[in-house]
């Protein structure tokens, strides 16, 4: 497998996901010619070639008992040993600061282990999976449509992206292709999800700096977005707006929604201008939590965080199953990879999303259908850009049932980058750095 991995990487391929399936260990890569899936019965670590696969290997070790020769130390990730945690840093004057799993607010549960000297963070070890619910295992053995609720349950804030990635994977395995209406309807659902997420995340970053007016203004904008969404989709988080093999979202008369979104867009742009000139906020953002371009590439970082570091990749540029046409990824003013750049990318994407929504809502939206087009295959892989980056879902079908589903979300891809960006920073800046990535825990833990 290692030689093949090296050949794929040399040809410009990028790691997408890896998972255990029965006796097999599989690794998927995106290449210029599409997704390639490698399988082996005797896994050997590829982390020296693909650092981004580190968490996949650690997870498979904990959940499926696989060993990965060459991956040392193979530290626990999903398993929570009572003793025997190895720590990345030790030495004179190094102090450990333990935070979580319960945090001091309405925040998801997860543990951070900081290794500090004074206020300076040497290393941060994210210990997540407190919320591991075994959703993938629970989904297995079910018909594709019946397994969807388990995939959606992984995360409310990414429910549409995860569901669409799953639907794409199943449809690829079944040889189904979406018609234009379905491509439009799913793109609409994805962009509505991105809209409320980006509004939320900009507000959350204001909260990370203690800038209350920004927090409240964007919380109110998010609320307006969710009320619009509830009227369009019947649910504030678009639950039920995605189905497998068919459409589930339609809008006969989009005129009122379009007008409301235009109003929201103008108010969001005005609020963003206020933030740009709020000195007490801006003074906190520059040069904090820097993620260099080469580190973003090495760690497999995706989404706004990668784009803020100068990695101009966006799954929307290559999504033939959706309706993105000639999509251009958003860029920050300067690709500095710091908190400021990540915030700017979100603001730029918010504007792009509003523009897209305006186009999508120019005509009535019909639910759409899929039709048989390709040969069925055993494994399907879907890749969708959620608000945090590219989410990959791999589905293996056997006798019409889901034999294995692996959901590798953008949050899963990006947690190592949060740890990397926090190293070298001041401990009190961590909430701000964390919120500039604004990753889900639920999406990771599953």
């Amino acid at each position, binding site marked *: 497998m290692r030689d093949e991995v090296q050949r794929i990487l040399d040809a410009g391929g990028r790691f997408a996901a890896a998972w255990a399936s029965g006796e097999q260990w599989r690794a998927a890569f995106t290449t210029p010619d599409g997704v390639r899936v490698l399988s082996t019965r005797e896994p050997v670590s590829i982390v020296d070639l693909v650092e981004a696969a580190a968490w996949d290997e650690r997870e498979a070790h904990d959940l499926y008992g696989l060993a990965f020769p060459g991956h040392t130390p193979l530290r626990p990730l999903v398993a929570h040993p009572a003793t025997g945690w190895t720590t990345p840093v030790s030495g004179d004057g190094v102090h450990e600061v333990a935070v979580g799993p*319960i945090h*001091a607010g309405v925040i998801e549960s997860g543990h951070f282990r900081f290794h500090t000297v004074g206020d300076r963070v040497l290393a941060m070890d994210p210990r997540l999976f407190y*919320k591991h*619910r*075994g959703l993938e295992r629970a989904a297995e053995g079910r018909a594709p449509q019946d397994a969807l609720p388990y995939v959606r*349950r992984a995360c409310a*804030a990414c429910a549409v992206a995860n569901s669409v990635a799953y639907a794409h994977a199943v449809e690829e395995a079944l040889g189904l292709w979406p018609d234009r209406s379905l491509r439009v309807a799913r793109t609409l659902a994805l962009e509505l999800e991105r809209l409320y997420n980006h509004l939320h995340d900009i507000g959350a970053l204001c909260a990370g700096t203690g800038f209350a007016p920004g927090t409240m203004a964007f*919380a109110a904008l998010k609320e307006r977005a969710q009320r619009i969404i509830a009227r369009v989709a019947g649910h504030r*988080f678009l639950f039920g707006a995605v189905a497998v093999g068919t459409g589930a979202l339609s809008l006969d008369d989009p005129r009122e929604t379009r007008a409301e979104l235009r109003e929201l867009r103008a108010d969001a742009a005005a609020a963003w201008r206020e933030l740009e000139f709020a000195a007490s906020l801006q003074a906190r953002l520059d040069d904090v939590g820097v993620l260099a371009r080469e580190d973003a590439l090495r760690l497999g970082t995706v989404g706004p965080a990668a784009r803020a570091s100068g990695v101009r990749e966006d799954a929307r540029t290559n999504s033939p199953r959706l309706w993105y046409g000639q999509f251009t990824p958003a860029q920050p003013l300067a690709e500095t990879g710091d908190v400021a750049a990540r915030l700017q990318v979100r603001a730029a994407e918010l504007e792009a999303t509003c523009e897209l929504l305006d186009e999508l809502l120019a005509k009535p939206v019909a639910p759409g259908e899929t039709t048989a087009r390709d040969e069925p295959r055993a494994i399907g892989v879907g890749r969708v850009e959620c608000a945090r980056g590219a989410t990959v879902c791999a589905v293996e079908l056997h006798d019409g049932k889901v034999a294995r589903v692996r959901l590798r979300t953008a949050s899963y891809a990006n947690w190592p980058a949060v740890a990397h960006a926090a190293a070298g920073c001041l401990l009190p800046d961590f909430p701000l750095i964390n919120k500039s990535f604004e990753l889900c825990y639920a999406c990771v833990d599953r």
Partner: protein
Amino acid sequence: MFLLLKQLQSVRREAGLSRGPRRSLRVRHVDAGSCNGCEHELGAVSNPFYDLPRFGLDIVASPRHADVLLVTGPVTTRMAGPLRIAYEAMPEPRLVAALGDCALGCNVLGDAAEIVGLEEVLPVDIRIPGCPPTPEQIASALASAAGSAGRGPRSAGRA
């Protein structure tokens, strides 16, 4: 220090102190394995559209300051321990609220081997169903728990 805290825990109950005529409720939230939907909506009740603090309802950082432990998620094996610790740190009398269908054990939860269930860990006093419950439902449930159902929360139901 732990002895001092232990003594303080029961002082309010032993003194027969009621929470008084003032309508207030301090809520400590614990995510015990939710999909983050309930967190989003619980966060939303503090936004200017709902403004929960005007009813004397407050989300607090420490369980030692809380009247209510508000639990989301089905309670995973890994969160049962931290959840119990948070509950034990609370002063008495204390209430437990289950927020959302997962905490109530009636949703798509996951693999049975990974889930403990809230009722197995703590006694549940307040039930707020929904997937997720809307901010209106959360606001009105908490406001009535604060004993102000007749007066303050009228606008909560309308908001």
